[in-house]
């Protein structure tokens, strides 16, 4: 008899409403579900990157040759250092965010505001670093390779970059490289000690270097144009899909960081004017914190699959 009573009582509890089996508010739970779906979006992109990489595994660029720059270290190849710096910025802004959430639990308004402010600064520094990276990393590599400026023969050339001032709208010319292909070819044929290194990797994972004869045959037969750096169509370092995925995925992630900074700014002002103090709950800080940590989480994977593996 007693058990029956107990069952009825607990049933009334369960179906009567007002209880939270997950012990999370609606907003927080929806933020978690959004994060799951966004995680699937990112993993879709990263898995597509993996697919293309496996498809062209013998011509995939080597990250250490691409990301070699560090501010104020001109000509010194420093792979990994810059992206390590960016990673630390993002992890650190995650720490200030979680400290803000914790201060919110303790209802300390000024502390929440301070930590939110630091988080915003961290996010802004990260986005700025990424802008520098996009503009710099794919250009001018050093090492055993030869800069084309050092051997290309200067020839008089009529080609100039097509600029909007002397043309029609919505039409852009090809970017002019510092030397055109004919100049590079002439310079290459004149210098006996130059060899061609192809994008195809040998058994040891190093790009194949052709003999002088094969190099001459290659530049005469297959040479088409000069590429400096990488864009969405061509890539100096290997298969162009690498640059496509790199710019797309880091761009999508950077956009997430950018929106995170905007949301953080809104929440920061709400903290400062005391909205959550009046509401007696800093749960909004917690929700935006979840989003911010998720952005950090995605970066951890981007870091691994673009720069390390």
């Amino acid at each position, binding site marked *: 008899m007693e058990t029956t009573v107990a069952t009825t009582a607990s049933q009334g509890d369960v179906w009567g409403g007002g209880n939270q089996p997950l*012990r999370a508010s609606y907003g927080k739970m929806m933020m978690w579900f959004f994060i*799951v779906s966004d995680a699937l979006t990112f993993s879709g992109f990263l898995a597509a990157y993996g697919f293309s990489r496996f498809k062209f595994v013998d011509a995939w660029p080597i990250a250490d040759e691409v990301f070699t720059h560090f501010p104020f270290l001109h000509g010194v190849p420093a792979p990994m250092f810059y992206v390590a710096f960016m990673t*630390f910025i993002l992890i650190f802004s995650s720490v200030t965010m979680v400290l803000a959430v914790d201060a919110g639990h303790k209802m300390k308004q000024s502390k929440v505001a301070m930590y939110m402010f630091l988080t915003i600064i961290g996010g802004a520094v990260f986005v700025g670093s990424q802008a520098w990276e996009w503009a710099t990393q794919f250009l001018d590599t050093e090492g055993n390779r030869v800069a084309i400026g050092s051997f290309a023969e200067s020839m008089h050339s009529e080609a100039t970059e097509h600029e909007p001032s002397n043309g029609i709208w919505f039409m852009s010319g090809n970017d002019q490289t510092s030397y055109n292909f004919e100049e590079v070819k002439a310079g290459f044929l004149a210098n006996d000690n130059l060899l061609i290194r192809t994008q195809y990797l040998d058994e040891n994972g190093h790009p194949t270097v052709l003999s002088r004869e094969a190099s001459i045959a290659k530049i005469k037969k297959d040479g088409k144009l000069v590429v400096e750096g990488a864009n969405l169509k061509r890539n100096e370092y290997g298969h162009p899909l690498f640059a496509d995925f790199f710019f797309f995925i880091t761009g999508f992630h950077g956009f997430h960081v950018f929106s995170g900074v905007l949301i953080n700014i809104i929440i920061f002002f709400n903290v400062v004017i005391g909205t959550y103090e009046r509401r007696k709950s800093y749960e909004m800080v917690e929700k935006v914190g979840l989003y911010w940590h998720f952005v950090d989480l995605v970066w951890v994977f981007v870091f691994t699959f673009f720069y390390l593996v």
Partner: protein
Amino acid sequence: MGHHEHSLAIFRGRLKFKSIEQKIWGVFIFLSIITIVEVIFGIIKPQSLMVPFMSSFEGGFMATMANIFLSPFIFMKPLNLIFIVLTIVKAYYITWDFMHMRDETKALRRMVVWTAIFLICYLILILLVEGDYIFEVYKNNYVKFDF
């Protein structure tokens, strides 16, 4: 909503902190150490870790099954395997301690984590197998169609 209790221990209770702030800094130090290790490995790239641990099995159904189950050790450079494991460790601590997944109910935790893990593993498996297949087609067969 009153906030529920935070658990203050990491590493399965082996490392306990006195306050939530201390735990946050502790996790930060741990994540930093992992990142530094990754960066050092990424710069040095030790030659001994560039060759897979095992070679693939030949012949028969069981050999194929063994190749599938042991694929991380047969087809992957140990260095890359280390990177991926360290990444997952980092992801775990970001989710569990920074996003407070450790303090959520088991149901919420499984709803979020198991769903994502299952779908992501499935997607990766399918796309990587397909990518490798196309690579083999390019390499070994005459292909006229560029897809």
